[in-house]
């Protein structure tokens, strides 16, 4: 029984430490609010990027604009909390008020009077300076596909279309054929690793698609991939920026079977599953 | 003591043939292969000179001799000045009476049971007038090849064997570098990347019975133990020919190789292909 007590005591030690620290330093609403804001910032900036890998998605730093947006929400929330009851509100305001009026806070007040206008002026300068960046560009990575396309003069209906090679012949042969097609045609841009990092990849903007990424072929049907390969950059609708894409229209180079086999290769090599039409249907 | 003398004589014969062969390809390329003539003194030879016989014969060419392109050495005044006439490529050097020079002739089969000491002396591959002297040379396994730059300008010596490890050495000034090959290989191509026209061939064998034909086409392999042999003749344009001979004590077996116009462009062996499926069972030219 005593041993259990010791264990609990030991387990509780870190919490007691934290609460004692909090009790000592975070003893006013203002400090608590400040600490909350810092915590929120750290969570957004550092914490969030840890989440996607947990569910199998690649991670990335959170863009500054998003950080800013969430911080604004955090500030609003904190303000709601501190102004929730009158007592806390006035306690919260006290240190601010003190800095504004108390004679013994003259130094802090002077400091704020210098630093805040200076920051505002600097920000104004930065935004008034001539903007020499590229105009904004918007690009739909996976634009809506047409329901049918003309492939080498023949009409192909994409709706509900499955990869015909999956029901004929040996998958291994299709894979090998797809591998040949891939290496002879796709390698320079999409790379050996299928990550869109071939030796030409950095030269083209937008960068070639990364097939290993869970956000590309893994969430597309094979018919969609067929459309993209067959029609390439020039076949994109306007929201896909057809003028920028270096993806060739492969119907000028490959037969339908070659395209289907390279699709088999893409999924096999990355161990992704194509999205099926059943899954698509479920959403309706 | 008499036996010992016999050996020395045989060796001297070999070396002198070598000198002839070495100088055969060119127009007096500055004492190219003269090194080693003095003190080639093998330790123990398994060959009994008293019972040995010889092989001798001719390497000839019939047909229209291929035209050798002229080499433009204008960019290398130093080299151009060393040539009294416009230098030409040397992949075909014919002589009088149909003799064919620069043919590497060696015992291909028949010596498997014997081992031979590595000569202590080096053979010389000289770069003179932006030309290799000699154009074709033979060397024993492990024997030093002294690569000499006599031009005082940048040469690189890029040997690309398949049986041996390659080397690619720079010689920007007059200097010497020694290299050797550890495995028999006929032939090892050598080229200079700085001067695209410069090429040479080195035949590496694990016995002393090899020679290079001179312009008169005569070849001789002396001091062979009695027995049956396969003699091979290699030419860089015409490929290889083999001849079976039987050597008897004190006698000279006749050989003759006639290369023809029709053989031009034959695939020229440069070492045997490596058998990937049986890397352990891979056979080099020596057995």
């Amino acid at each position, binding site marked *: 029984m005593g041993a259990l007590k010791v264990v609990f005591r030991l387990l509780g030690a870190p919490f007691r430490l934290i609460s004692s620290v909090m009790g000592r330093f975070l003893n006013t609403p203002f400090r608590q609010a400040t600490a909350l804001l810092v915590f929120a910032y750290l969570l957004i900036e550092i914490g969030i990027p840890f989440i996607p*890998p947990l569910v199998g998605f690649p991670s*990335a*730093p959170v*863009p500054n604009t*998003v950080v*800013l*947006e969430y911080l604004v929400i955090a500030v609003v929330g904190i303000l709601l909390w501190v102004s929730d009851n009158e007592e806390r509100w006035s306690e919260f305001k006290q240190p601010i*008020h003190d800095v*504004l*009026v108390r004679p013994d806070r003259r130094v802090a007040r002077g400091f704020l009077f210098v630093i805040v206008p200076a920051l*505002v002026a600097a920000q104004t300068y930065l935004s*008034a300076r*001539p903007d*020499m*960046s590229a*105009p*904004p*560009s*918007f690009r*739909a990575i*996976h634009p809506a596909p047409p*329901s049918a396309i003309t492939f080498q003069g023949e009409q192909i209906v994409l709706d509900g279309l499955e990869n015909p090679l999956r029901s004929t012949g040996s998958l291994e042969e299709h894979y090998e054929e797809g591998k040949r097609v891939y*290496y*002879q045609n796709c*390698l*320079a841009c999409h*790379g050996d*690793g299928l990550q869109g990092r071939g*030796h*030409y990849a950095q030269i*083209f*903007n*937008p*960068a070639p698609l*990364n097939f290993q990424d869970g*956000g590309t072929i893994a969430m*597309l049907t094979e018919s*969609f991939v067929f459309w993209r390969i067959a029609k390439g950059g*020039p076949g994109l609708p306007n*929201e896909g920026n057809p*003028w*920028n894409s*270096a*993806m060739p229209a492969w119907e000028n180079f490959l037969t339908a079977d070659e395209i289907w086999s390279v699709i088999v290769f893409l999924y096999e090599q990355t161990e992704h599953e194509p*999205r099926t039409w059943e*899954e698509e249907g*479920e*959403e*309706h | 003591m008499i036996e010992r003398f016999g050996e020395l004589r045989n060796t001297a014969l070999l070396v002198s043939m070598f000198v002839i062969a070495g100088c055969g390809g060119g127009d007096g390329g500055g004492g190219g292969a003269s090194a080693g003539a003095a003190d080639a003194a093998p330790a123990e030879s398994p060959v009994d000179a008293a019972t040995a016989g010889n092989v001798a014969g001719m390497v000839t060419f019939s047909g229209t001799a291929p035209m050798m392109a002229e080499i433009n050495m204008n*960019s290398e005044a130093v080299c151009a000045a060393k040539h009294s006439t416009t230098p030409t490529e040397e992949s075909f050097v014919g002589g009088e009476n149909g003799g064919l020079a620069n043919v590497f002739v060696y015992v291909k089969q028949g010596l498997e049971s014997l081992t031979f000491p590595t000569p202590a002396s080096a053979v010389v591959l000289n770069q003179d007038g932006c030309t290799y002297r000699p154009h074709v040379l033979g060397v024993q396994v492990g024997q030093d090849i002294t690569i000499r730059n006599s031009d005082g300008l*940048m040469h690189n*010596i*890029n040997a690309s064997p398949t049986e041996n*490890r*390659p080397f*690619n050495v*720079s010689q920007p000034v007059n200097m010497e*570098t020694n290299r050797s090959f550890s495995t028999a290989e006929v032939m090892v191509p050598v080229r200079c*990347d*700085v001067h695209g026209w410069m090429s040479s061939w080195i035949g590496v064998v694990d016995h002393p019975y090899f020679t290079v034909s001179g312009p008169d086409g005569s070849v001789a392999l002396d001091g062979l133990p009695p027995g049956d042999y396969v003699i091979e003749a290699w030419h860089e344009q015409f490929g290889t020919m083999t001849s079976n001979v039987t050597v008897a004590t004190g006698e000279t077996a006749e050989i003759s190789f006639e290369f023809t116009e029709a053989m031009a462009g034959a695939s020229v062996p440069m070492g045997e292909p490596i058998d990937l499926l049986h890397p352990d069972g891979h056979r080099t030219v020596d057995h």
Partner: protein
Amino acid sequence: MRVLPNLRSGGWFKVLLSSRHITFSSLLLAASLPFVPTHLGAQVDGEVVYNQWCAGCHGEDGAGTGPAANTMLPRPRDFTLALYQVRTTATGGLPTDADMLKVINEGMPGTAMPGWEDVLTEGDRLALVDYLKTFSRFFQDDPPTPLDFGRATPETDEAIARGAEVYQTVECWRCHGQQGRGDGESAPTLNDAAGFPIVAADLTENWRFNGGGEVEEIYRVLRTGLDGTPMPTFSDIVDAGVITNEDLWSLAHYVRRLSPEDEPEVREVVTAKLLTDTPLPQTVEDIVWEEAEAFYVPLAGQIIIKPRWFNPRVDGVWVQAAHDGRELALLVSWGDPSESPDTLWADFGERVLTTMAPGDEGSASGSGAADQLVVQFPQELYEGQERPYFLQGDARRPAYTWTWQSDVTGAFESIARGMGTAARQADAEQHVRATAQHADGQWKVLFVRPLDTGSEEDLAMTVGQAVPMAFQAWDGDNGESGNQGAVSTWYFLFLEQPTPIAVYVQPPVALALTLLFGLLVVRQARLGSGMVRELDASARRKRIARTRQLAGMGVGVIWLGMAFGSYQNSRAGWEAGHADLGFWWAIIGGLLAIAGLGALVGTWIHTRTSK
């Protein structure tokens, strides 16, 4: 059920945004950012790893003849020869395991060989090293002994000066050229061990050096040579006392200095410097170019339309630009060892052509064409972000191009509706002037054109505006012509404008306003706490009320301002064809407008009733 976007309805576009104004879908950026390997690496069998990831180029038999091999120059390594370029061993030596792992990890810069460090697990990569060694019996010999390279000498000015002398002594220029651009007299005749044409490295691009571009790596190559290529070892000349080991380090320092400090960063916008005091440069040697910032634009082979070209010689161009408000001067420089057509190089081009696949219909049948550079613009600036197809436009959106050729003086303007369709404008409509210079393996071409030519057929350039711009380059002596050359996608040319007066006015005004606001706040606080004694109670109340009124109005105005910003974003979204963006910004703008009006009205009502 997996939650997936509905592709068909168009309801959820995945929109990639680079605008700093728009924040919505930025998180979706994540989808295009670095890949984290998750499922690779269960294998430990080198053969399985090799066949899956390496055989496509190197072939299952290791002979370097996989399906992709003949679209590459240099060709993939033939492992059966056991000829390895990157080694720490003497020439002809076998690589150590660490040497082989280094290449697997880092790849071979400047070639198609990528680094595998973040694709394959360490176990996989080590298994590969072992498997590669089974392709050659040479690896059955004793393990190789690495050379002792010692430590780098300090990089001093003296060392670099000495290195320049050594460069002459050991005659590096024979292949690499006097300025290191791979234009030496022996360069056109070079072959690799397999007999394929090979170029002498351009020593001004150390980020493309095989085996690495830092001083230690350059020194290592000097000591070991690059086996299988014409690059020899320089160890023997140190052993022979021709130069010292320190000299060789100095040479390495010198070679390192031929390249920029860092690999050039690729920037989307090329800025044309505004010249106010100096005249616009009319020659490639003008002093302005020594000062003007240089922008690097990498190029890739044109592998999009037939006939494709997988072996471009020009891997990038340096772009500098200046204008004086009336004319634009654009200087483009790039490495090219010859002034095509050069008879010394004719054979090289032929050999490249016979070596390269795929040989699409329409492929060049012979080398000897001229060098060529095309600078491409849209014929006009379209609404939104629309541009011509980056390969010289399309039927609907023509491109406007400047073409320079090494066998023609000057340059000419054309209108193109697709690669190879460029139609030269009438002589009367030609406004671009060009001068070119070829020296030490480098072309420099200067284009000069009025910003506004007055012709409707030409793109008019406006100061303070970003204009799309793209480049295409051909090296005739490398067998390039027609569609077979090097291309870039779109960049921007921005003509620098005089600094607007607002830049000098706004910050001080903002500073003063903030200060004033601060004073107001402090004063208000003091009033509230009764620290200002001279006012009586009613006056104090009045003042508080007025300040509150001001603050409330201020908030309302700010919110309305934000609503206006949202409205503009919304409009931009609609115009760019992104209905979803337009819609959501419209909603935000509407809410902000309501809030702003509410603040104004509320303040007004509140302060009125409090009277």
